[in-house]
């Protein structure tokens, strides 16, 4: 709404404005856009964290991953990233939540890349009757003491050089919790980061 009206004003009055007024208007537009992105992420978070009836079904994780990679193909190309993955299992789960997990973790891996060619590997292994999924990157990594902080809502470690709302990992945490699992990160600065989430398996004994 703020964005629409700022665009409208730019269209109808753009010519009549002086440089400083045009700058103010573009500031409104830019922040309108940020607000919009933030609001969309918050709505997503509330939707993931609160929606009632879960649709548990048998989900082929390979298919979910391919769908996510397809949605992120622009960002993958832009980052020149090499994405590899092991065969993933089929599990009893909630597809929309798994989608959110892979999408947020992979787009973070792309975003927080380092100078070297970004490599991201997705895998899963069965440990103690839980499937533990990993999204490993060779990006900038994070300090181990920040490894809980980053899962909070609006918790960010970087300024504007990395765009973001501070909600992506909170969405991941909410999604994993709704699936009865947990999520954590293993990382050191400069050594990449591996995000893992463990999901209990219904009926897998």
């Amino acid at each position: 709404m703020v964005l629409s009206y700022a665009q409208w004003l730019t269209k109808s009055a753009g010519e009549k404005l002086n440089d400083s007024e045009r700058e103010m208007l573009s500031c409104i537009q830019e922040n309108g856009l940020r607000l919009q992105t933030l609001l969309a992420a918050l709505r997503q978070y509330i939707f993931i964290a609160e929606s009632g009836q879960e649709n548990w079904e048998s989900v082929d994780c390979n298919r979910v991953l391919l769908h996510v990679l397809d949605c992120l193909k622009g960002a993958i190309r832009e980052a020149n990233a090499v994405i590899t993955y092991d065969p993933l299992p089929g599990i009893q789960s909630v597809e929309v939540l798994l989608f959110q997990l892979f999408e947020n973790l992979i787009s973070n891996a792309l975003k927080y890349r380092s100078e070297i060619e970004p490599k991201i590997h997705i895998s899963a292994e069965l440990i103690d009757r839980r499937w533990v999924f990993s999204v490993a990157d060779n990006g900038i990594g994070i300090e181990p003491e920040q490894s809980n902080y980053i899962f909070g809502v609006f918790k960010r470690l970087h300024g504007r050089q990395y765009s973001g709302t501070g909600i992506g990992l909170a969405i991941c945490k909410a999604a994993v919790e709704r699936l009865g699992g947990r999520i954590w990160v293993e990382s050191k600065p400069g050594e990449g980061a591996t995000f893992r989430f463990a999901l209990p398996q219904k009926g897998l004994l």
Partner: protein
Amino acid sequence: MSGVHILVIEDNPGDVRLIQEALRSQTVSFRMTHYDTADRALKAVHRYQPGAADVPDIMLVDFNLPAGNATDILIAAAKNPALARIKKAVMTSSVAPKDRDQAILHGADCFIFKPADLDGFLNEVGGALRTLCDEVSALSAGRPSG
């Protein structure tokens, strides 16, 4: 003929203005009746009489409203013979797919996710309303006048 009569139920005056602009951008000739809360809209929805001149051709309802939501309005409209068959559109800025399912289940002919940018809004809202207006005109052309 004063064009298509659109009943808009929307609490944000900014959006009402954008809806008017979207209709103008489609060169649709229209008149608009507007309510800004679900309870006011519901009173009106109950009051419409079949065949009366003030019965709208199209209803456009924002999903989340003060004092209710679009499903309340759709359910009430379905019960009033004056409105049961008019075209109904629901729009929202929410992302919840269940909102759309609910709206469609209760008789919405179309569901619009409000785009945040001006061109998106004008195209999508304008385009959807244009389609409904064309359907309304096609229906009334097929009917003997008077």
